[in-house]
């Protein structure tokens, strides 16, 4: 972890609500893992006051670049869209614990909703590089919101899209879809991000099928460095329920152990 001032190579709108930012990252010497994040100062000005956390969307080790995919949501992300190529952005990171791909996992299932797609995209990229077969169910409000996900298809990920627009995104339909995929494929592990309802579903299915799972959580953050205890979540351990920091022990947790409330 350090304070990085990275030059923006591009910052473009990729769909109605989503933007994509690419930065020169040769100064980051530490390895950056899928599921890890950066805490970004969205504007040089005093406001927005706090940094905003964004997980890494893509890394190009050869090019020495990193990419983020972000949803225009409130003040911070609106300001971020104002940044233009050539400017520098202050990003603290890499932060937190990322995903782990088990050695024997040759086929994995990704279940992402909304911006969770950004988080899982980095994992998909690593999986593909490691020749792991990747099946991804992407859920969003509209097909437009999924435009940004096309990169995953480009990587060779098998993508299944469900949306409110098409009436395909309800939990029961996703449930059927997953069960079908589990029959058709020898899935070894599951990964999810972006929706509590879908996470609960995947937690249940993974448990039923005895599959290991991982989840990337989101929580409002103060420091993002593990010092302030703003971002806690509950984790079931042998000794009972522990309150741990999403920014430090997470944001990626064992799906089985997370208390989804």
């Amino acid at each position: 972890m350090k304070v990085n001032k990275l030059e923006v190579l591009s910052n473009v709108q990729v769909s109605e609500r989503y933007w994509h930012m690419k930065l020169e990252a040769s100064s980051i010497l530490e390895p950056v893992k899928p599921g890890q994040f950066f805490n970004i100062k969205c504007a040089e000005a005093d406001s927005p006051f706090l940094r905003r956390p964004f997980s890494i969307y893509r890394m190009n080790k050869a090019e020495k670049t990193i990419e983020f995919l972000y949803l225009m949501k409130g003040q911070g992300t609106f300001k971020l869209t104002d940044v233009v190529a050539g400017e520098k952005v202050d990003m603290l990171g890499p932060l937190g614990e990322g995903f782990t791909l088990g050695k024997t996992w040759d086929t994995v299932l990704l279940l992402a909703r909304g911006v969770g797609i950004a988080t899982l995209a980095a994992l998909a990229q690593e999986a593909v590089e490691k020749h792991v077969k990747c099946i991804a169910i992407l859920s969003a409000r509209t097909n437009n919101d999924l435009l940004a996900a096309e990169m995953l298809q480009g990587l060779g990920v098998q993508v299944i899209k469900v949306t409110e627009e098409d009436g395909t995104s309800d939990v029961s339909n996703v449930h059927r879809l997953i069960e079908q995929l589990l029959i058709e494929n020898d899935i070894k592990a599951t990964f999810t991000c972006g929706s509590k309802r879908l996470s609960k579903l995947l937690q249940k299915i993974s448990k039923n099928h005895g599959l290991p799972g991982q989840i990337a959580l989101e929580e409002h953050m103060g420091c993002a460095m593990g010092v302030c205890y703003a971002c806690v979540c509950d984790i079931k351990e042998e000794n009972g329920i522990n309150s741990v920091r999403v920014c430090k022990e997470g944001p990626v947790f064992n799906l089985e152990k997370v208390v989804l409330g």
Partner: protein
Amino acid sequence: MESLKLDVKIGELKLKNPIMPASGAFGFEMESLFDFNQLGAIVPKSITKYPRGGNATPRVCEVTGGMLNSIGIQSKGLPYYLKNILPQYEQYNTPLIASISADSVDEFAEMSEIISKEKCVSGIELNISCPNLEGDGKAFGMDAELSYQLIKKVKAVTNQSIIAKLTPNVTSIQEIALACENGGADGLNVANTMLAMAIDIHTRKPKIGNVLGGISGPAIKPIIVRLIHQVRKVTEIPIIGCGGVMNWEDAIEMILAGANAIQVGTANFINPLSMMEILEGIKRYMTTYQIEDINDLVGKTDIPV
């Protein structure tokens, strides 16, 4: 300038410079960012006797010029602190000020006595002002008599330098400051967060799980500067200014108002290097204005008569 004197004293406690973190906004996790030996003091998060789960999330939210927090002093309890937190800092030659939070006067004394015995502890800050706990934001530091008793009891069981961290949520901080001084406090921290609230108008829910939270950051700086000025008027014991210091200009402003040392909290979240930059800025200011000793600036606001 040849040599700048940056060292300050709080009771028996000698600091090589006046810049230290504010409790709860700093931790060993920041160790890769800068050299803790550069700090005037190390101040870990407040510790409670027993483990505490802390408050409901969300525990922070953003407001204009600052943030609200209501962590609720999540803590693994005193034994864990002694065994696992304090030893992390043993490697540094920077004095450590332990911050204590407790539910009763006796518990404050008991904890102070235990913590005093730790070799690596050089001072104790009593968090008598945390607004997040029970009782609608009330704190020991809102009551002068209680504050007096509390400090007196603690001083009776320890030789450590004792700093009372005051609450800004009072009608007369001067009264509380004097009570703490009379109780034997070696220094006063002015101040903890101000009690505040924010509501999401769409969900109609408080933005903080615990409903009320403490506001920190530049929004409160002018109030804190006033409080330091008021406290400095009634006492000569060292004051640690705390609240909204984002840069070296803010630190100098508080020193001019009457602070002997400065704590930096929320700024660490925005710029984790801010304490180092503040220290550099203070040195530049001293050089520019030919101030050899930082202590010569304390309270040196030019007040019209």
